[in-house]
């Protein structure tokens, strides 16, 4: 039986994060644009210092790289707290807890780590992730058309990518390229590509439902030195290591944080708002919506914590992490939707954060592996089917 009781140490960390979100971040948001995703630099610097003092900066970085050594269960609990503010889903705490490097970089060579991993940990560089293309994102092994051809010590890369968040501001990206067209998954390699490389071009910013846009990229005769091949040639997908799958668990819990806050707001409102002579909270139709909210939140939390617990104990957790992503994300979407219904007209307005979460949670069912792909992963495990079939 899994024990979900919170230890004193976990409680201390959660309380610190909660206080920062409620007492620092939420008041600042009152003066920001309802769709803002960054803080004024002076405020950000001030809060980063506070987080460093708490010992929680760069929470996602393993201890051997100087991180604070937060285990995956605690990290999942913290994720629920971090997102409990307007911008929380896609900009939890506006990044004042630091941005860990992409997990693939832990598999880099020492030279690559020096140039890319450490500067990200120090907050000097940022990265984008270049997998999806116009030809598709769910099944990249078949869809990737961007082509790399070896030329002496270099690779010459032509093609393009779509949906790359942050590529216009990033210093480099991890870009998946077809280096052997005769092979499927084994024909894809990952490259570290500096955005200043000649031939790299941001074609346009792609506007989506949330305020933070994505990009469309083109690569024309981009010459990349062999030293920038990440992992082995043809081993691009092998880089999707355990660390990366583990990160999916707190990512899923982030959606729950938003749902918890929406639910709290809806409960307060239901108690205050009177119609036909009684508070909404006295009506069974509303009570059932609130109960369904609670069920979705608890189900999502259990799914996330079970996945985190297995990962923490070193047991297989692929099925459970996909389930956590699916259950928490879809459940959070329903919670926000019901909460908006309880607020009536106010739920639709930009005076409240609900409409923003509603839009952003819709994206969550596509990004980081769409719901259908999570089901495909789970079905493979259930039926013992090899990946790629």
């Amino acid at each position, binding site marked *: 039986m899994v024990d979900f009781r919170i230890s004193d140490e976990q409680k201390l960390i959660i309380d610190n994060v909660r206080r920062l979100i409620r007492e620092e971040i939420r008041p600042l948001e009152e003066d920001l644009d309802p*769709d803002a*995703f960054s*803080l004024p630099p002076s405020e950000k610097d001030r809060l980063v210092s506070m987080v460093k003092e708490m010992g929680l900066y760069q929470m996602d970085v393993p201890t051997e790289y100087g991180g604070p050594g937060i285990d995956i269960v605690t990290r999942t609990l913290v994720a629920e707290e971090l997102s409990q503010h307007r911008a929380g889903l896609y900009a939890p705490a506006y990044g004042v807890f630091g941005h860990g490097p992409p997990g693939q970089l832990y598999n880099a060579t020492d030279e690559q780590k020096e140039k890319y991993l450490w500067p990200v940990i120090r907050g000097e560089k940022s990265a984008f992730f270049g997998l999806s293309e116009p030809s598709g994102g769910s099944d990249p092994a078949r869809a990737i058309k961007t082509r790399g051809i070896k030329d002496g010590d270099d690779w010459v890369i032509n093609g393009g990518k779509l949906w790359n968040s942050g*590529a*216009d501001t990033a210093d480099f990206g991890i870009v998946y390229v077809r280096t052997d067209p005769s092979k499927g998954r084994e024909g894809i390699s990952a490259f570290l590509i500096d955005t200043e490389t000649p031939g*790299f071009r*941001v074609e*346009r910013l792609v506007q989506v439902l949330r*305020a933070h846009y994505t990009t469309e990229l083109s690569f024309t005769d981009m010459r990349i030195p062999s030293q920038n091949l990440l992992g082995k040639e043809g081993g691009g997908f092998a880089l999707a290591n355990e660390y990366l799958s583990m990160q999916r668990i707190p990512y899923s819990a982030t959606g729950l944080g938003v749902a918890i806050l929406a639910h709290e707001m809806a409960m307060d409102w239901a108690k205050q708002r009177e119609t036909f002579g009684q508070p909404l909270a006295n009506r069974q139709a509303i009570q059932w919506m609130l109960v369904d909210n609670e069920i979705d939140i608890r189900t999502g939390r259990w799914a996330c914590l079970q996945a985190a617990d297995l990962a923490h104990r070193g047991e297989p957790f692929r099925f459970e992490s996909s389930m956590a992503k699916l259950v928490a994300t879809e459940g959070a979407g329903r919670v926000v939707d019901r909460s908006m219904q309880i607020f009536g007209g106010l739920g639709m307005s930009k005076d409240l954060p609900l409409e923003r979460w509603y839009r952003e949670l819709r994206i969550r069912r596509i990004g980081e592996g769409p719901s259908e792909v999570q089901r495909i992963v789970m079905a493979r495990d259930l039926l013992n089917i090899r990946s790629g079939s």
Partner: protein
Amino acid sequence: MRIRKPWTPWDNSIDYKTLPGAMGVFEIADSKQKTIYIGKASGKSPFGLRGELFLCFGDKSDFDGQNWIHPRMGQPLPVIREHAAYFRYEVNHMYYSRWIEILTRFNEDHGRLPTGNLEDSEVIPKLGRYHWKTKESGTEN
């Protein structure tokens, strides 16, 4: 990428009621049709684009007694007060990212932001790079 609409002079021929009260983005130009400000009517703008445009041109026209300015909107920037002559806008519910897109495009083409945005106290998120310029580059439009 930039707003693809011709500049409209702000004068008495405008039927103010046709200016949308919706969220969106707008550009303000001087009498030579050079962009001096790229703005947005956000989820907090009391009268949407109409209000933001009224604020920019506030002391320049007779509004037939109409007032679409709210105390919460503050004062127009000095450069706008002195030089605003033309405007163009786009209704857009994703006004925030569209605003960043137009600022990014301008910044890439001209190597700097419009004068009004440089004067403005609103913090602009870190702008990215396209690594290429449009034919508007250097024309300031």
